[in-house]
């Protein structure tokens, strides 16, 4: 683990302003050096003294990290960072270091040194702990299993959770991955407010709104990048922007044109947004090419009297006389909707307008870089030809494929027949008894004779002798009513439900434990470290215990003895297989390593 250095303020309580300085974290110590060399607040603390860490939520007022000495008493070393990215880097570092110490402390002393790295990978932050507790609370079966195996010292806490990483991950993803998108309220809804006495009109812009303006109006975004701070201050920029918005709003196109002529920066806001227009053109190219959009444009009645949309109490008109852009309500709504749907691509803290603007520019470059115009054109042509394709005149679209060539389907059959016949209670060998060598001609002649015999003699009467019929019916009745037939046939009715509840619970618990233990057992092979060797020993003794308990359940005399033994038998078999594997491996190794006392010293 490398060291990490971060600018931070040190404080003893959350309220105080703190001393600015530099925080440096290393493998086992962290140090704080104040910027002011005269300050006495120099720190150098061993991580071993730190028992836990707390931190403020992302997006809260301050980016805080609190390294506590004693979780009960509270207090400790509080650092405030410039932003959450810095804080999170330090938090994660502390988490790893603390996790390592914790794992070291809980480890048995007899473990060789080389094992440390494998055991200590897991870090146990408080959130991690909470997540596990939550999972256990929500799933009583998991809790039972956890209690049995972890508190029973058969598996360690980390071994238990190692196979359930997905549960933890999913949960984590749910908590942290969701990002807030743009508000669905439109920019137009943010109205200027007048104080009524003077002619002053106030627009209020929050970082949130600015981000949204950048996303929805690329021309404003570009202008910001070009003008600020080289040509004007940020404040001037927004003042101009608001002025332009105001002109838009008052629908005073003459005034707008006049002002635009005087002030070229202001004109930028009043002109048509060429980036948007370009984007729109690109989008139109992706529309079904057989659709005539221009024809549609002619059907626009909004300029006729009594037609159109009312906005802010007045009717929208379109006049194309001057350069001044008239955005219609429909355009604004569409633009806003598409930006909201695209979502917020930025992953940075809002605040500094310049950073936001630059980050947005970067993300846009990435997304547009992959499509060149030439490709788009080709694609369009392809689409046109596909849309105008007349099916009956086309050759079939044949996909290239490699033919599956099965040389001998007999193999599938044979591999299946073995089991099929076993299940039906007969064997292949026993049944292949008709081996008469036959003359083809004779066989056909026999068959024809049989048919003509029926033809000549007619059907027998009665068809079935009553003795035979009775035999058949009682045979069928017996078959259907036998227990073997009924067992497990009805999916709604489980064999388990017929057992007494206590026995059922017991068997279920053993069953889940066995599954868990066997999973750990088999995944421990091949045994490459003495850690695994010890783990297998632990697992084996636990499995032996369960094995005895199962046998005890099975041997109890009760009405359900048969059903219970049917249930338990496969469990015992699974355990037997594991024991057999254990013994075989043991033998193999003792032969190989002969003289060595326990055979697993690496």
């Amino acid at each position: 683990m490398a060291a990490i250095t971060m600018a931070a303020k040190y404080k003893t309580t959350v309220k105080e302003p703190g001393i600015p300085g530099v925080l440096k974290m290393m493998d086992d110590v962290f140090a704080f050096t104040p910027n002011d060399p005269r300050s006495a607040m120099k720190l150098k603390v061993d991580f071993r003294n730190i028992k836990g860490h707390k931190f403020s939520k992302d997006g809260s007022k301050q980016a805080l990290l609190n390294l506590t000495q004693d979780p009960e008493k509270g207090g400790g070393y509080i650092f405030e960072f410039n932003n959450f990215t810095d804080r999170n880097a330090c938090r994660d570092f502390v988490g790893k270091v603390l996790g390592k110490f914790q794992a070291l402390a809980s480890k048995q002393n007899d473990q060789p040194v080389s094992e440390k790295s494998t055991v200590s990978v897991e870090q146990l932050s408080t959130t991690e702990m909470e997540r596990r507790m939550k999972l256990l609370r929500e799933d009583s079966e998991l809790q039972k299993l956890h209690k049995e195996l972890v508190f029973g010292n058969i598996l360690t806490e980390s071994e238990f959770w190692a196979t359930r990483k997905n549960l933890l991950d999913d949960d984590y993803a749910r908590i942290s991955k969701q990002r807030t998108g743009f508000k669905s309220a439109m920019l137009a809804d943010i109205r200027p407010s007048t104080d009524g006495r003077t002619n002053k009109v106030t627009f209020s812009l929050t970082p949130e709104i600015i981000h949204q303006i950048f996303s929805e109006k690329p021309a404003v975004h570009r202008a910001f990048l070009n003008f600020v701070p080289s040509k004007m201050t940020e404040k001037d920029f927004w003042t101009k922007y608001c002025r332009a918005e105001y002109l838009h709003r008052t629908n005073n196109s003459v005034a707008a044109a006049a002002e635009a002529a005087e002030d070229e920066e202001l004109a930028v806001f009043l002109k048509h947004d060429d980036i948007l227009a370009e984007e729109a053109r690109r989008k139109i190219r992706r529309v079904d090419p057989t659709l005539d959009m221009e024809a549609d444009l002619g059907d626009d009645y909004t300029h006729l009297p009594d037609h159109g949309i009312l906005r802010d109490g007045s009717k929208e008109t379109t006049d194309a006389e001057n350069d001044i852009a008239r955005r219609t309500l429909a355009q604004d709504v569409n633009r806003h909707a598409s930006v909201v749907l695209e979502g917020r691509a930025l992953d940075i803290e809002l605040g500094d307008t310049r950073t936001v603007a630059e980050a947005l520019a970067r993300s846009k470059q990435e997304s547009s870089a992959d499509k060149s115009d030439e490709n788009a054109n080709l694609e369009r042509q392809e689409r046109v030809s596909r849309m105008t394709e007349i099916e009956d005149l086309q050759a079939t679209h044949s996909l290239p494929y490699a033919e599956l060539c099965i040389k001998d389907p007999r193999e599938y059959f044979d591999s299946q027949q073995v089991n099929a016949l076993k299940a039906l209670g007969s064997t292949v060998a026993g049944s292949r008894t008709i081996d008469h060598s036959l003359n083809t001609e004779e066989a056909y002649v026999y068959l024809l004779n049989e048919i003509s015999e029926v033809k000549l003699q007619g059907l027998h009467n009665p068809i079935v002798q009553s003795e035979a019929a009775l035999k058949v019916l009682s045979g069928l009745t017996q078959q259907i009513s036998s227990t073997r037939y009924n067992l497990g046939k009805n999916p709604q009715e489980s064999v388990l439900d017929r057992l007494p509840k206590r026995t059922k619970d017991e068997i279920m618990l053993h069953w889940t434990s066995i599954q868990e233990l066997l999973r750990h057992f088999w995944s421990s092979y091949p045994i490459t470290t003495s850690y695994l060797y010890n783990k297998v020993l632990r697992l084996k003794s636990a499995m032996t215990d369960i094995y005895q308990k199962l046998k005890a359940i099975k041997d109890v005399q009760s009405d359900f003895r048969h059903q219970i033994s049917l249930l338990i038998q496969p469990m015992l078999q699974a355990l037997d297989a594991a024991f057999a594997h254990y013994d075989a491996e043991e033998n193999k190794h003792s032969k190989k390593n002969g003289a060595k006392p326990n055979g697993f010293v690496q």
Partner: protein
Amino acid sequence: MNSVSTPSKLYSGNFTYISSSPFLYFLPPLMGLLILWQSDDVSLIVVLLDVNPFFWASSAASVGDSTSPHHPTAILSFSKLLNHVIPFLNSLLLLNQLNQVVLVATGVNSCSYIYDSGDSEGESAGSVPAVCSEILRRLEEFVDKDRLLGKGPDKVVAAGVSSLLSGSLSLALCYIQRVFRSKARHPQPRILCLQSSPDGPEQYVAVMNSIFSAQRSMVPIDSCVMGVQHSAFLQQASYITGGVYLKPQHLDGLFQYLSAVFATDLQSRSFLQLPKPAGVDFRASCFCHKKTIDMGYVCSVCLSIFCKHHKKCSTCGSEFSQAPSDPNATPDRKRKTSEV
């Protein structure tokens, strides 16, 4: 005779069996049938009859053979089989006026439609003697044709010649598809396989395809296996499609099995308890030794299963370039992350 009381508990269908009489007493449906164009229990039954000359000839030979280990009731002659099957087909038609029965012959060289109750025309058509003679006539024609198609060796081992089950299953399914498509309201179709000869391993892919397409069109395949050995194909077929698989113990009472078990229409099956096999064993066995295995190698192309690593798949010929690393020699990389 008080034998009626025992079975009636389990087989409460819409017919009554009186053991001293060979006939089924058909209870006519109520007026409803006249009003409704069709009711739920109208069935289309496609019966696949195994007409394998080698099987029937050799089983006849083994009956005379005193060294044969089989009890005489375990083997039926073909004429006796017809004596059970033809009345059964007639009784299916009697169960419901609108029932339709199609008989397909499964030969060793070909398959063919033998009889279709929907086709019959004329005055005497549909009467029991007419149906019987038509079936016999068409069967004779079929056997003659099948003989001419054969180009195999003169002498064969009976157990080695299997009937074209895949072919007759396909015919049945095609017929059912036609019915599905031609009428908006059609009878409930099902297939009944009367199989006696052993399964033909070389038909594996074709048979499985037929079974799956039957499953997709929700057509149950009932199986009545009259041969010496069980049929793995039909066991699968009935299991997958939800049909009944049965291997009768007493073949001299075959008609009784057919009418008690296989005559039941799909609607009534939900109220009845019919015999089913103990279940299909889905454990895998390796292609190389036919041993049941718990862990093995699967060809990623054709899904063949092997108990140990091969350089090349023996079924489809795919080459496996990468040999698995010897687990004992090198520690698995995955292990490190999953252990902890």
